[in-house]
């Protein structure tokens, strides 16, 4: 079982520390990619499960009890950037994507285990 190839989306420097961007994957999926102030990267689904709008990339990031979170800009639910779990409503979650930096470029793609479980 192999992961689908990761997709280069932009230069690492294009991201503002502490903010996210949206990327469009070949299959039409939208991914929200965040660069935290410590330069770590996280990628989750861009679709807000509560409203159906593709806006997660425009949410504020921060931490809850030390764990990195993104907060939906519409109704303000917080999601773990590590697991995608919604911390305010356990029935909802964001899909988590693989993300890495190679040659100064950010690359994202589906997680192997997420695909395997699907």
């Amino acid at each position, binding site marked *: 079982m192999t992961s689908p190839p990761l997709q280069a989306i932009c230069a690492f420097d294009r991201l503002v520390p502490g903010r996210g*961007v949206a990327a469009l994957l070949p299959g039409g999926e939208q991914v929200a990619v965040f660069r935290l102030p410590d330069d770590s990267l996280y990628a989750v689904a861009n679709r807000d499960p509560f409203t159906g709008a593709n806006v997660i990339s425009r949410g504020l990031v921060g*931490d809850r009890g030390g764990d990195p979170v993104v907060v939906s800009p519409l109704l303000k639910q917080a999601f773990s950037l590590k697991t995608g779990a919604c911390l305010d409503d356990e029935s909802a979650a964001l899909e988590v994507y693989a993300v890495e930096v190679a040659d100064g470029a950010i690359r994202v793609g589906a997680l192997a285990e997420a695909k395997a479980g699907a």
Partner: protein
Amino acid sequence: MSELVVIGDGMVGRRFLEAVAQRDPSWEVTVLCEEPRPAYDRVRLSAFFDGASAEDLSLASDLPGVEVRLGEPATAVDREAKVVRSATGEYPYDKLVFATGSYAFVPPVEGRDLPGVFVYRTIEDLEAIKARAAGRRHGTVIGGGLLGLEAANALKLLGLETQIVEFAPWLMARQLDEAGGGVLKQHIESLGIGVDCGTGGTRIDAVDGRLRMDTNKDGVAYDTDLIVFAAGVRPRDQLARDCGIAVGERGGILTDLSCATSDPDVYAIGEVAAVEGVCYGLVAPGYAMAEVVADRLAGGEATFPGADMSTKLKLLGVDVAQFGAFDGPLATTYLDPANGTYAKLVLSDDATTLLGGMLVGDAEPYPLLRASVGGKVPGKLADLLGGGEVEGGLPDGAQVCSCNAVTKGEIMGAIHEGCHDVAELKSCTRAGTSCGSCVPMLKQLLSEGGVEVSKAVCEHFTQSRAELFDTVKVTGITTFSELIARHGTGSGCDLCKPAVASILASLSNGHILDGEQAALQDTNDHFLANMQRNGTYSVVPRIPGGEITPDRLIVIGQVAKDFDLYTKITGGQRIDMFGARVEDLPKIWRRLVDAGFESGHAYGKALRTVKSCVGTDWCRYGVQDSVKMAIDLELRYRGLRSPHKLKSAVSGCARECAEARSKDFGVIATEHGWNLYVGGNGGFTPRHADLLLSDVDSATLVRTIDRFLMFYISTADRLQRTSKWVEGLDGGLDYLRGVIVDDRLGICADLDAMMAKHVATYADEWKGVIDDPEKLQRFVSFVNAPDTPDPSIEFEEVRGQKFPAGSAERSRPVLLGTPVIRSSQGK
């Protein structure tokens, strides 16, 4: 329909009308009112000399089915014919209510009718006192009770050298014992007011345009410019006596516990009523009577529950409180002459039950003590008397708010049901909404109920927003990362980041998307537009004062058309364009900026709009140019970041078409200048703004608003609107006026400088973006496909405009009853 006649339109009469309107609006009500104006707040009468106008004290309200006949006193009651007569009319009744209140008692002193001798009861009395005081020096008050001290305060506010003459051996003899009266006297004398107890006036003579009052003390006489009798009140029961209704031994219309008089169709409420022979001179028992009679008229069986005569007042800046029994089997006292405090607790003979007491100079334990009357002594006597920390709780049945009869149990219930601050408790339970003396107790109960009263912004900062503001200001820190590294923990969140972003913006005024600040802004600030439910944005250009040229209107229309935007007129007199995709925002704003528009900050915690009516230029009623003032104010404060959004309005006359009193700061024109109101709000909990200044010129107006805004920005909590902020200020409006008008904290120069810096450095945020390629590149749909619009955004057409897909379904229209059209063909 049944007819109800009410004689008197005072505080209690008005409360009665409201209670009737609420319970049984079918009554046709006629009110005969002797005074030329409708009900007003007599309790706050001396505020009339402290900037409040008659209008501010007014309690008038429009009630359906109620006709108030001002300046038309009732002259006779014919109980046989069931009709009330005035000089000009006859008013038949099914039920009659006496709410005639009381009149000022003037002891039979020769010369009491001379010009320059007054009583202290109505707004007309105060106006006459004010007129007499003009250009004069000295005033004398006869009476050293509650009313006398109020009157002395009024004379002091008028700038007169003031002398109190009291017949009893000490001040406030009905509330205090000799030691308490002595401490109070010390305080009052230290304010430069003369106090002479055990002395009575014997005759008054006019001497060379002044007055001379001789006294019962040998050789003691007072030369003065005016004399105010404030020696008590008597029930106005003459009309009732004249028609044969029974009165009490010591006056007052005799009633039973239902407030019915000896004639079952006639009731008496308020100060004129002697319920089971007892007259009550406070407003709270009067309100209770009003509710009882309203209930009876609606078929209920309410009875007067008795009254808590406890009082707590700030008289001439001195706290005085009395509660429960005045004396009893065991009394323990504490006197601190150095600090001018006195406390006395009255206890049962086994010293376990609190029966009553009094406090002078420091009334902090009053709420706890009053609520404990009849129960266990709520702490160690030494702590209670000496102002130490008091531990121990109240029983659930203890009445915390005596004005509105709210117990601790009810308040705790409201807290458990989700009331989390004093304002919510006030609206849920009505506790603290009348005299306000139990508000400190409410705060204590909130913490007892487990409500975190911590003002910490979030888990990353233990400081309140105001503390962070001071920290940033004093340290000169300009970045969030430095602030959180030095004064917080973790990496921040959606609560502290925008709060700090706002503080940095208030203090520095650089572009909010510069450098590290960009990462702090909430999404609306980050894209300088308001995100809507489907992820598109709305665009609101500033239209100062709501004034716009036809050419600019055409620009907005053309832009909306070209970018296919839904348009709507907003409540703030501007035009909102909805449905803009994030990647279109810079193109839209390029067009708007080129046409001279600026950001309207509809997305920010910042000044939104200053609405205006059409003012003197067009309106036949306007007395000042409201449009010009609104534009000036909007341009002055545009872009000012604050703890929450700010709204304002300017009305050109008292008709108030701009609804200025629902705004954070509202301005209403007068014949002589402007009135400034602050702390208004629409929204969830509407609140009328309070009058801060009256009849000021434009420069004073603007300077005061400058300070109001900067003081608010410096000290408010995160997301605290001005209404809650003003309500939460210890000392309220007087304190606010002291700080920003009289400069009591010495910070006005600083506040002025902060505003001057804001005005000097303001720049349009959208112009700053479209001229900056680095900022522009954030406005893309996808970082890897900037020209591809988000394919998930869909619209549909409703009423000739576009809406987010699914709108028609969401709106679930309510079906209206439609007329049935009959076919004339008769098939």
